[in-house]
């Protein structure tokens, strides 16, 4: 399961108790949301990437140390748990990326998929690396990697197509492919 799906599930279950079903004459059910929740949802919709301050459970420092040792020794589950901890409970993206990479190295298919999705598309090198990790995660049985692999390969195909046809596309866009000169040349 992707981190986006997990996050939406987490938000859904955290919002569940605040939702009550309106008893109206019409058959349509309209949920009633508290003003604070409504504001939060508006903020999330207005700013993509905004994270509401609903946090996950905290882990004690002793348990964190144990998990870190387990993860470094090769446990994919411990590394996954640490990455989700730094994603949801303590928002530290640098540490989250570190533990996602460790989990991917330890052989967790989900983490390999997440790590592969993490690379930006712009650089060719990073695109290759993302395809490497996504293929690894697919071979380890993570079905979610397929869609992202398709996106990466289609981006590659688009780039090649654009390289070949960029001049033609641009002149069609500007409508100046064949600029006819109807005026007579001055003598």
């Amino acid at each position: 399961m992707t981190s986006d799906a997990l996050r939406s599930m987490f938000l859904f279950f955290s919002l569940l108790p605040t939702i009550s079903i309106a008893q109206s004459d019409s058959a349509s059910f309209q949920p009633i949301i508290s003003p604070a929740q409504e504001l939060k949802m508006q903020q999330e919709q207005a700013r993509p990437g905004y994270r509401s301050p609903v946090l996950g459970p905290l882990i004690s420092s002793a348990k964190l140390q144990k998990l870190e040792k387990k993860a470094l020794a090769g446990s994919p589950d411990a590394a996954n748990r640490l990455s989700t901890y730094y994603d949801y409970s303590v928002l530290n993206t640098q540490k989250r990326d570190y533990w996602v990479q460790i989990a991917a190295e330890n052989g967790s298919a989900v983490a390999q998929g997440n790590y592969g999705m993490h690379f930006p598309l712009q650089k060719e090198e990073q695109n290759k690396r993302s395809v490497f990790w996504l293929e690894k995660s697919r071979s380890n049985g993570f079905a979610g990697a397929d869609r992202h692999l398709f996106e990466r390969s289609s981006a590659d195909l688009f780039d090649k197509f654009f390289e070949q046809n960029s001049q033609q596309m641009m002149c069609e866009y500007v409508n100046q492919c064949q600029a006819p000169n109807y005026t007579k040349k001055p003598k």
Partner: protein
Amino acid sequence: MRYPHVFFAGAALLFFYQAAMPAVIPFVSLSETEINHDLPLAAMSGSWSAAQLLSEYYFHESNYAQDAFWLRIWAQNGDPIGEYNYGAYLKCLNGSGSNIRSFFWIRKSKLPRAPIVLLFDAQSCRTLRGRLPQSQNNSPPDLNRPN
């Protein structure tokens, strides 16, 4: 065999040439496009040898940040020798948790000589001193390549 004396002379020549070879073999010369484009793309796609070449090239060039980066890629690509080398590098790093991580990579390599790394002392780490960072910086590595 029609000309056995030719075969044996060749074999003897090869044998003595090997014996006369210098202990330090100079690094193969790589073109700029190979270093900056071809090899990184191949290494990022999962090639063992490309990552190995890049790691060794940057080690010879004394660019140890790049060397450590490609060493990790070499290990991630699944080459047992890369895993062993990266484990040895982590063993000498003295960072928090790097000792445990080095054991992970060395165990993963499954090489018969792997347990030797567990006996590494300061003297054996001094041979790897080029690869070790000047300041012991334990911050998690970035996804991007170092410059």
